[in-house]
């Protein structure tokens, strides 16, 4: 290992299938419950935006610069667009990015991290170097440069560039965890049975790491939200797509704060923060579940920590 990232190493929570375990763990931890409820609310909004907002987010035929009214809950902007509708309809694309990028980066991280740990030798050397290099190159400026060249009006340019660049942090954690499994008997048994390496990685190792994989997904989804909304905010998303970051971009370029329309910027900003908080709370709760030493209010006991 060339540098130390403080990697939480969750111990396994016994019994039950993976999803039942995750569900029970979420219910038992207050931070996780709050995070899960927040996330659920956003998912419902994203699925049924028409139920909550009656106006179209792209219609610009309302009276501009309205304050809070019953017809327009958050008022309207200088273009005469309804801000409530913009915020509600913007939920979908942000969640879409969070889930797609979160899942794709986690898949890459799992494969690379576990392969490096299990295959060892030259494989481990080269995959770890690749991971470390990507880890220290400042990603946001890199994403800005890519977006600057790509002129992407498609959401996929953003999704792909974030996915390709931001898997390294969790890959490193997963490698550390997989290293601790390397000499377990069940892997030796698979080796003796003559299973292929890919089979061992996918069927034997990965299922034992469910809780860390879920935690990786949460971390990556949070990065995806912060990176993509940041890119949209500085005008490198598709300016015509309804999304929180894009709404913020227009608010910023029309000087919403200086001209007495703070909610144009605050509403989408707070939504990004709340969605980010949902993922962060769930993630922190997973650390607590995995590492009992971090749980709130209890007597400190000695904790054995596996080192990667």
């Amino acid at each position: 290992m060339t540098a130390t990232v403080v990697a939480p190493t969750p111990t396994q929570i016994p019994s039950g299938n993976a999803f039942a375990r995750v569900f029970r763990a979420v219910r038992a931890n207050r931070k996780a419950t709050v995070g899960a409820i927040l996330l659920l609310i956003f998912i419902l909004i994203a699925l049924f935006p028409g139920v909550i907002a009656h106006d179209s987010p792209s219609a610009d035929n309302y009276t501009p610069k309205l304050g809070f009214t019953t017809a327009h809950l958050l008022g309207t902007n200088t273009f005469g667009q309804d801000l409530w509708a913009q915020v509600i309809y913007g939920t979908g694309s942000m969640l879409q990015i969070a889930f797609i990028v979160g899942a794709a980066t986690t898949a890459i991280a799992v494969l690379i991290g576990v392969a490096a740990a299990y295959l060892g030798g030259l494989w481990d050397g080269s995959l770890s170097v690749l991971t470390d290099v990507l880890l220290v190159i400042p990603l946001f400026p890199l994403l800005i440069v890519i977006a600057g060249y790509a002129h992407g009006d498609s959401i996929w340019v953003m999704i792909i560039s974030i996915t390709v660049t931001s898997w390294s942090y969790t890959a490193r954690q997963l490698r550390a965890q997989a290293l601790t499994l390397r000499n377990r008997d069940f892997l030796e048994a698979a080796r003796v049975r003559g299973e292929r390496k890919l089979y061992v990685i996918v069927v034997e190792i990965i299922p034992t790491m469910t809780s860390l994989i879920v935690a990786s997904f949460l971390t990556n989804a949070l990065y995806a939200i912060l990176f993509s909304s940041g890119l949209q905010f500085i005008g490198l998303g598709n300016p015509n797509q309804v999304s929180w970051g894009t709404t913020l971009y227009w608010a910023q370029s029309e000087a919403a704060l200086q001209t007495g329309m703070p909610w144009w910027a605050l509403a989408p900003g707070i939504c990004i923060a709340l969605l980010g908080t949902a993922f962060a709370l769930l993630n922190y709760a997973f650390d607590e579940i995995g590492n009992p030493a971090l749980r709130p209010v209890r007597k400190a006991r000695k904790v054995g920590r596996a080192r990667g």
Partner: protein
Amino acid sequence: MRYVLRRLGFFILTMWAALTLNFLLPRLMPGNPAEVMLSKFHGELTPGSLHSLEVLFGLNTHQNIFQQYISYVHQLLTGNLGTSLSQYPQSVSSVIGSAIWWTVALVGVTTVLAFILGTGIGIVSAWRRGSRLDSIVPPVFVVTSALPYFLVGIVLLLVFGITLKWFPSEGAYYVTTDTPGFNITFFEDVFNHAVLPAAALLITLIGTWILTMRNTMITTLAEDYVRMARAKGLPGWRIMLDYAARNAILPNLTGFAMSLGFVVSGAILIEDVFNYPGVGFMLLQAVGNEDYPLMQGLFLLITVAVLVAILIADVLTALLDPRTREAG
């Protein structure tokens, strides 16, 4: 020593990776975007600056990709980053030179502050497990560390810059009424302008540092040598600082250096919110103006800065922590 050499090797490898990325990106994009840019400015460029840009972006050349790569690396090694197109005829390095000190000061001061404050709060919070302080700290800072930088910037700007008018809301100093120079009024002006951007960065940064420090500290507090210190009857503050914190800080040093990439991305967004004339703001303008040479130069500069900081943290860790020296 072997540890430091290995880290130095990694530093060089990463530098090479960043250079190569910069070389490949414009060439990999469908329809080399630099070509469009160059055709726009074609008539206005001197043959010398035209040539340097052609080498950077691989235009009008009969060389194959390997020869292009060699001339590209050669040109960068001579310190020639090309000519800025939006601020023609200035060279990219001189344009960057005008912006870099604002960012270095802003990011440098907030990083050091966040390190000191974050580590301090983390130590105390872990030391007083179960106290009221410790029941507030984790949830509050989990939330602040998930806040997007620009939201914190916007809220501070709205409350303290626009509504209360306590601090100026944009720029690094009053361009119209103040002239840069070594005098008290100018420094005061610069300080006032820096307060809000610095506070915004600090608020979003500090959470991660508190939480990592707290969590490492909790693990360290369970070590036998801490129990030993308690058994000897040492005063609490000595156990907290000399026994636990001293050992808990070390593994975090590298983590802090790694987080510099996030500090930089935060600085870019915050500079955008406050129109603060640093390298982040300049990067966004370069992207907006399709000034690709400036954009590439800034990306290289930011990467070098982050990598150098990580190298310094590695050397520090090696000096302070005998375990890394043993591990080789």
